């Protein structure tokens, strides 16, 4: 479904990613792990078109998307829930969700909205409220919900548990598990390696802009490298 082949990208003149290869098959949940600064966020930004892919290829459902602007990539079915939530703070929860479906505007949002509000009941209570007034955990729910409103074929989620209370972290991972059961194709970036491996089928470990390690969650859970990552994080 999603495929990266030797992707190089970065900021200014410097490449942060030095040839990243990874694959996410349809219906699969894949975790992207690594220390702070390993290039996880940069990888997601390159996939969704926020930064330019300097070399290599990104394919979505077999089609090259690495030269497309972000809006064209969303329209082809890829949603990116960014690090730090990035909700539209001056818009209401309802308007945030409506904007999540901007790429599909003109078509009915009813079913998608019902599903998303069922997945995140708290958003129903906050529906008319400005997103900026929500708690951090609620904003994270909203950010994921907004990403789902586009009915993506692939969902990228960047550090959804960052800065949340343990209870909220638990809620977020419960939601991710439900998305997995619903058959969502998911690429999940997390610092919390063991939590992430709990929902993921497979994982990649990024280091210095390259994939250092890949394998099934079962195998990686017992790997000393991941253990080090976990302790060192």
């Amino acid at each position: 479904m999603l495929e990266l082949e030797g992707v190089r990208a970065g900021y200014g003149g410097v490449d942060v990613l030095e040839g990243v290869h990874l694959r996410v098959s349809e219906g699969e949940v894949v975790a992207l792990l690594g220390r702070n600064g390993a290039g996880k966020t940069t990888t997601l930004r390159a996939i969704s078109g926020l930064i330019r892919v300097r070399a290599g290829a990104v394919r979505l459902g077999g089609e090259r998307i690495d030269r497309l602007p972000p809006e064209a990539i969303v329209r082809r079915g890829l949603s990116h829930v960014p690090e730090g939530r990035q909700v539209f703070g001056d818009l209401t929860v309802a308007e945030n969700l409506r904007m999540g479906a901007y790429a599909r505007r003109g078509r009915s949002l009813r079913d998608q909205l019902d599903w998303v509000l069922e997945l995140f009941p708290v958003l129903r209570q906050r529906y008319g409220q400005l997103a900026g007034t929500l708690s951090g955990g609620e904003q994270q729910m909203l950010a994921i919900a907004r990403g789902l409103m586009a009915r993506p074929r692939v969902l990228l989620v960047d550090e959804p548990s960052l800065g949340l209370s343990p209870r909220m972290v638990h809620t977020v991972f419960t939601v991710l598990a439900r998305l997995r059961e619903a058959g969502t194709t998911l690429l999940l970036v997390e610092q919390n390696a063991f939590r992430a491996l709990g929902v993921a089928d497979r994982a990649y470990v990024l280091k210095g802009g390259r994939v250092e390690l890949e394998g099934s969650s079962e195998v990686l859970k017992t790997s000393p490298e991941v253990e080090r990552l976990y302790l060192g994080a």
Partner: protein
Amino acid sequence: MDLRVLSDVLVGGLAAGAVYALMALGLVLIYKTTDVVNFGHGDIATVSTFVAYALAVQAGWPVLAAAVAALGFAALLGAVVELGLLQPARFRQASVLGLVVVTLGVGLTLNGLAGIVWGHDVKSFPFLLTGPPLRAGELTIPVDQILNLAAGVAIAAVLYAFFRFSDLGVAMRAVLSNRTAAELVGIPVRRVFALSWALGSVLGAVAGILAAPILYLEPNRMVDLLLRGFAAAVLGGMDSLPGAVAGGALLGVLENLAGTYGSIDLKASLAFVVIVLVLVVRPHGLLGAGRVRRA
């Protein structure tokens, strides 16, 4: 105090204030969406008004048709400034100050062009509507004042509905709330920037065309109007569209009160006093979000 004089002052003040508000709305819209204070706003309005003049007076079009065509011209001009100048500059990492200087350059260029094409002799500009004044009891309201008020109220209502209910209007607010997130949900941010420049320029042109019959037309005439638009925008908080409307109305009334009960000099300098006072005492104005960026 004579009630009749007072009501004349109020209605006349609101009619002038409606024009200031339109000017301010254009400035605020562009500032809010693109972070750039447009110092070319007055000159874009002037040149657009000259286009209406050329069509109506020189080419003999019906004045309303000429005005509509001039608004189309303003939209195009605004979009060209954004797409042709500001976006390439942003792409090369220009600072906001650099972009503001670009708008200043655009204004000076347009001002020079207007002088070359239409000269510096003062021209009279036709009223869009003519007719007998409206009488309501003791009060008589000239038809041009009614037009200003109607245009101000109608445009404010349309803008409100646009930003509240339409996909594009909400998308414009989304862009200014969080640009990265806007890109990620698929809003074409560059086109939204161009659209707000087009819309902002149209609002300025409406103000210019409404003011020209009274102000007369000359390349430098709109400076006063621009400053009043600035004062209204600052008064309203610079980043608030309702604030711009309230600021314009308030400034118009205050000016008329100052002119009637104070002196004509006081009236003329009131806009500057307002700008300075607001920036010193309450930088986020009446309705601004209070997120004043400090240099």
